[in-house]
């Protein structure tokens, strides 16, 4: 799926609160007034989003670094 950052193993996680398996859904990331769209593993009931370590330390960290100045 285009713009999807969900690995198959991410979908084996369950939302602790809702006891439901995560599924791929739209998420909106906001940083410094900019919104970015991505398909991420989310809880279909409460909308809680899982950001994998790979994504957090990879592309999301790069967004932060690119938008920061000296």
């Amino acid at each position, binding site marked *: 799926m*285009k*713009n999807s*950052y969900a690995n198959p193993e991410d979908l084996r996680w369950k939302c602790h609160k809702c006891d439901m398996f995560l599924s791929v859904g739209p998420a909106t*990331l906001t940083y*410094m*007034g*900019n*919104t*970015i*769209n*991505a398909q991420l593993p989310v809880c279909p009931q409460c909308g809680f989003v899982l950001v994998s370590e790979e994504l957090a330390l990879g*592309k*999301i960290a*790069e*967004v932060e*670094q*690119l*938008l*920061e*100045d*000296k």
Partner: protein
Amino acid sequence: MSKTVLIRLMPETMKADSSSERRVLSQTESLCPVCLKKIPAFRVTDGLDVYLEKHCESHGPFSTVIWRKDPHFETWTRPKIPIQPPVCYTEITKGCPFDCGLCASHRQITCTALIELTKRCNLHCRYCFASSQNLDDPDPDINKIEFMFKRVREAAPSCNIQLSGGEPTLRDDLPQVIGTGRQAGFGFIQLNTNGLRLANEKDYAASLKESGLSSVFLQFDGVSDEVYKALRGQALLDKKRLAIEQCARAGIGVVLVPMIVPGINAHEIGSILELGLKEYPAVRGIHFQPVSYFGRHPESVENHNRITIPEIITALEIQSNGMVAASDFHPPGCENALCSFSGKFLVMPGGGLMPIVSETNSCCNKPVRADIGARQTIFSVAGQWSAPKVQGSAIAGQGTTNSISGMDLDGFLDFVRSRSFSISGMAFQDIWNLDLDRLRDCCIHIVSNDGRLIPFCAYNLTDIQNKPIYRGQ
């Protein structure tokens, strides 16, 4: 040196102290330009302007403008929690600024280490902080340079490197020097150059790129040959443009570095920005340097021959017809706030520049650890001043888009990677405006022959008779 000469040099010393607008804002320390004695110095407002005032018992008063008008001096702050350098190569014996190396009273780590590869130069500029000329002084050999890289690596393993001079391209082994730096583990190596060899030799830029060069810090004072004739002694604009072209072809990021001198090129600030944007993405940013009076310079060191940070910022807004605003710029997170300004922008497909960080930098008054700011700067500079990962026709976001919100993550990353542009500037200190608070906060350090790290402005400092304190050691 007679008293009469000192008064001619510093006419503001004649100002009456009785003006009701004059107010001492804060105190620091400086040196007497004549005898180099350490003396108290005061930051004094006179209307919207600020002067550094000091008085030597033997050589009288000195007053040097350090700030003119808006953005207001007292709002230009970015406090830091001082950090002692993890490795100090010198002991404290004589006190700042006579123990540089760095010593334990320094308050910032190294963000950029400069290695001077030669004293020789193929220009003879009217202004040159290194007083370089075309003499047969021997260059440090490759073993000495390897030693310098090693000393930097031990003290500041993750810093950026700038290779400087003299004119470093006069060394035929420059590719080997760059390779040595990369082997020593440095990820970002920048070349400070007048660009002549890059322009004159077709494959030269490619050979530097192949050796591991990331970026060129290109002396670029204006968009007319009159400026180059006045500052550098000859018409150079075509050479400068050719140097940019060669770097673009080789995939080396270019930063235009104009030295701004009132009456010579301050009126071209907007045109330099315009040219830089025309040459984007090869040109990654512009870094202005208000003229300083150290090394070789014309004799007249008067306040009307100085231009300050707020004046450059204001000129950017006015001369770009509002394409950038003064409010887009902020004080630095690494060095002392009074040393520089910076703004980061996106070159929008629909035209114009969009500031991308002004929001966070409007809240900078909470002190942050100095080394955190330094690390952010190391990363930010290396990314911004290198060639973009996406180039040429692959630049993201063609068309008329003028917003970056709502893109998907990959599209957003490509867009920002390929379209960011920096506008910044740094005000160096000379013997007249030297402020030891600023010097202790310095993050740009020159490697001396004996392997010490000496703050840039201390290394280049010369007294009234042009005698250096550190250069040559």
